């Protein structure tokens, strides 16, 4: 993928909201139609910019749940209480509204199918809404299976907070493990924070030399990446994306 922006190439796009739906009680799935969108690889993000009537502007980054060459882009936004941008996107935005978006962004945190004969396995680790770019990678891998083993460990408060529930269940080339932190509907797996021991049990071992993508709130990513290194994973094989927030 060339990262060069050609002169005159659009960086800020006009996006039209084509569909909205409830993702979880606090989050919303938003589908955008962006005629000038150049397509994006799985894991990329975009910036949304809102402009108030007085000219005040606020921009925030959101991971993209879709990938490929299309002009239809899907994001899933979790409402940040007292936030400047997410409450508007989750509660007020309507089909037909227009938004300014900048992207696609974030070359560091992308998955593209490997052309190697025996590609390294891939371990995805998500905390909360950090699953969005990792779901995009798993879905892209389902569509363009390069033969690599894929696993997703998804830590989330309760089953009602799971993003892309039906889509995750439908994945055929990714093993999905859920860790519930607040309430579990599985009697054999009581709820609780992810720990280094749980992480070791539910992820690919260092001996299989996986490529690892971790996305979630900053405290989650800091804890998980520290545990991965303690378990023997090479720090250079770990790619992380932190979105702030709380644990």
């Amino acid at each position: 993928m060339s990262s060069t922006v050609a002169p005159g190439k659009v960086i800020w796009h006009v996006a039209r909201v084509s569909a909205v739906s409830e993702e979880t009680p606090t989050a919303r799935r938003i589908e955008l139609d962006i005629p000038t969108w150049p397509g994006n690889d799985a894991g990329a993000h975009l910036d949304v910019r809102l402009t108030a009537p007085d000219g005040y502007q606020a921009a925030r980054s959101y991971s993209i749940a879709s990938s490929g060459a299309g002009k239809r882009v899907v994001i899933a936004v979790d409402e940040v209480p007292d936030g400047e941008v997410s409450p508007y996107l989750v509660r007020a935005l309507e089909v037909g509204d227009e938004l300014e978006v900048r992207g696609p962004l974030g070359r560091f945190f992308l998955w593209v199918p490997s052309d190697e004969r025996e590609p390294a396995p891939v371990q995805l680790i998500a905390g909360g809404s950090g699953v969005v770019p990792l779901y995009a990678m798993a879905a892209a891998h389902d569509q363009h299976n390069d033969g690599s083993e894929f696993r997703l460990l998804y830590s989330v408060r309760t089953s009602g907070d799971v993003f892309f529930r039906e889509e995750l269940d439908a994945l055929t080339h990714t093993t999905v493990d859920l860790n519930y932190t607040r309430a579990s509907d599985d009697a054999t797996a009581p709820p609780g924070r992810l720990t280094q021991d749980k992480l070791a049990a539910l992820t690919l071992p260092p001996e299989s030399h996986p490529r690892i993508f971790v996305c979630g709130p900053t405290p989650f990513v800091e804890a998980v990446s520290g545990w991965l290194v303690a378990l023997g994973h090479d720090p250079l094989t770990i790619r992380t994306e932190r979105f702030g927030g709380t644990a």
Partner: protein
Amino acid sequence: MNHVDGNALAGPLLELFGVDMTTATGRCSGCHDVDLLARASVYISQMGAVIHCHSCGIVQGVLVEIEGAMSLRLPGVALVTSAAE
């Protein structure tokens, strides 16, 4: 508010440099650690973004946007190298 990381600066730096800088490498002028921008610690406020070295914590850069113009100071970066294609 927690810090984020250099991934969050992909958009503003795309406007400044015309390329995605998350895989560009910086050498810290404090501890001489060499790492990708995506791994730096970034604190974002209404005023702009402050970039800290992920290893030693010194301020590597300050990015502010005033009336649509982006400006970047890099007091703590000795060398920036673009990502190989």
